[in-house]
């Protein structure tokens, strides 16, 4: 953009190189586990690859002793989705609040930072005791587990909203308002399009942080394990490349989800440009 279209500045090539290296760095070890997930029945967790096949994918979804991956996944996925939705709603809302001065803002802000910092294992015990002794409620993945995950995702969501809303010019809202737009119109027509990419980032963080959270889930999900706990207990017993197969499946699913997300953004963009 800094130069007329067609001519790329030299920094483009340097940074494209850096970006490529970074992607290789990110995916390098992933690729080694993709390959190793096709280990044969006598293969180990390290190279070499011996009679490759689908043994460990079968093991993963079959009734073998690789832990209850299916059950754990059936809890982790809905939990992550609920956490994602709540994180987006609560952080976007709170993010807007922080654009005005209000009493207690500092206290709430630093409590959110505290929530980010406090060691998960300890908070996990604290939340467990709070649920049982203070609220008198049983400990379940969808109640105390959900609460524990929110304490982890909300600070991230809130702080990302700070990055998103920083230098968002309030005059746009005022202009819209002056032009006779209702509050709802202002929000939906002016603000949402501006913060939309940020909301996607918050959603992504909300989902993955929950999906992957171990310490805060440790004692708060009750007797039904979520996926990271199941994987952790698997590493104390299972040593097969089934773990790698799980990584491969997860990544494949991620790519599908991302393809769908990108596709829908593309469709929305086209519709919007047609309308505009």
């Amino acid at each position, binding site marked *: 953009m800094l130069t007329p279209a067609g001519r790329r500045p030299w920094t*483009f090539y340097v940074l494209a190189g850096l970006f490529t290296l970074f992607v290789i760095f990110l995916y390098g070890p992933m690729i080694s586990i993709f390959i190793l997930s096709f280990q044969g029945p006598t293969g180990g967790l390290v190279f070499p690859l011996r009679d490759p096949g689908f043994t460990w994918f079968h093991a993963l979804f079959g009734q073998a002793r690789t832990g209850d991956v299916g059950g754990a996944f059936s809890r982790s996925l809905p939990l992550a989705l609920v956490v994602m939705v709540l994180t987006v709603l609560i952080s976007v809302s709170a993010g807007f*609040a922080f654009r005005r001065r*209000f009493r207690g803002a500092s206290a709430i802000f630093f409590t959110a930072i505290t929530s980010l910092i406090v060691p998960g294992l*300890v908070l996990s015990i604290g939340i467990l005791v709070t649920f049982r002794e203070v609220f008198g409620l049983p400990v379940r993945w969808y109640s105390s587990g959900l609460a524990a995950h929110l304490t982890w995702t909300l600070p991230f969501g809130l702080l990302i909203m700070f990055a998103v809303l920083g230098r*968002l010019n309030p005059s746009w809202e005022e202009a819209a308002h002056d032009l006779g737009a209702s509050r709802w119109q202002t929000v939906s027509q002016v603000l949402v399009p501006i913060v939309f990419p940020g909301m996607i980032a918050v959603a992504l963080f909300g989902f993955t942080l929950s999906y992957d959270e171990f310490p805060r889930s440790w004692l708060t999900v009750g007797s039904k394990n979520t996926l990271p706990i199941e994987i952790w207990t698997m590493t104390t017993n299972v040593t097969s490349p089934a773990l790698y197969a799980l990584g491969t499946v997860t990544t494949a699913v991620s790519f599908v989800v991302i393809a769908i997300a990108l596709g829908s953004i593309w469709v929305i963009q086209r519709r919007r440009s047609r309308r505009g």
Partner: protein
Amino acid sequence: MTLRRILPYLQVAPLTLVLALFVVLPLGLVVAVSFWRFQFLVGPVPDFTLQNYVDLLSSETTWRLYLSTVKFTLIVLAITAVLGFWISYFLVFHVRNLLTAIALFLICTVPFWTSNIIRMISWRPVLGKEGLINQALMKLGLIDQPLAWLLFSDFAVVVAYVHLFTLFMIVPIFNAMARIDKSLLEAAVDAGASRLDVVWNVVLPLSRTGIALGAVFVVTLVMGDFFVVIVMSGGLSGSATSGIYNDVQIQNYPRAAANAVILLAIVLMMATAIFRVVDVRRELVR
């Protein structure tokens, strides 16, 4: 007008509720228990003693662990900040099509969707003595003994941290940069500024919120980590919180709680220092 005044309170209410019930309340218990006493074969006993704090703070081990954790934090912070800045810069200012930028951005996030544990384990076949890197170097004749320091070392810990946490830098910086008015940069270039001048004088200051937020993420993640450092160093390095897991195993909640409170205090100070440099909240209020 009144609605305008109470609106922020309504908007922040859900967050406040969650924080009050699930952070302030449990944390209050944790702080209270940190003054309790632990009696072996009995468990935590209500008391008011500073002994847990005295024991921890007077122990050389505590300080050595914090020093080593702070060292990791600074190294990882520097690497992820540089990577995060330039990758975001590339995505925001060099990739012309928004959809392509989002696609490339998402490519960076995919590995993030796989379990942390699996991603850490995945370094073993790469960095181990029999791993891909050593094998490649041996085949190329660059070394004749496998390099042992690639795995189970501080190097491996840093590699894993960068692998796991760079995204936490990219996301806020990317979002902050995306808000920069591109005509500003064109104006600067038209005025004869060099490309690096523009980066230094325009882009960097305008992305400082993102950098500060990313720094807070990375600092808290590394300071609070006990898992990555143990797995990647092969247990040869500890972390500030590595004692907590063992203590809670025998119900020594008082010492674990005191440990958590100390970490909280130190990291809060670090975060406050970052916010001193960049007041992220001031940037919001116009």
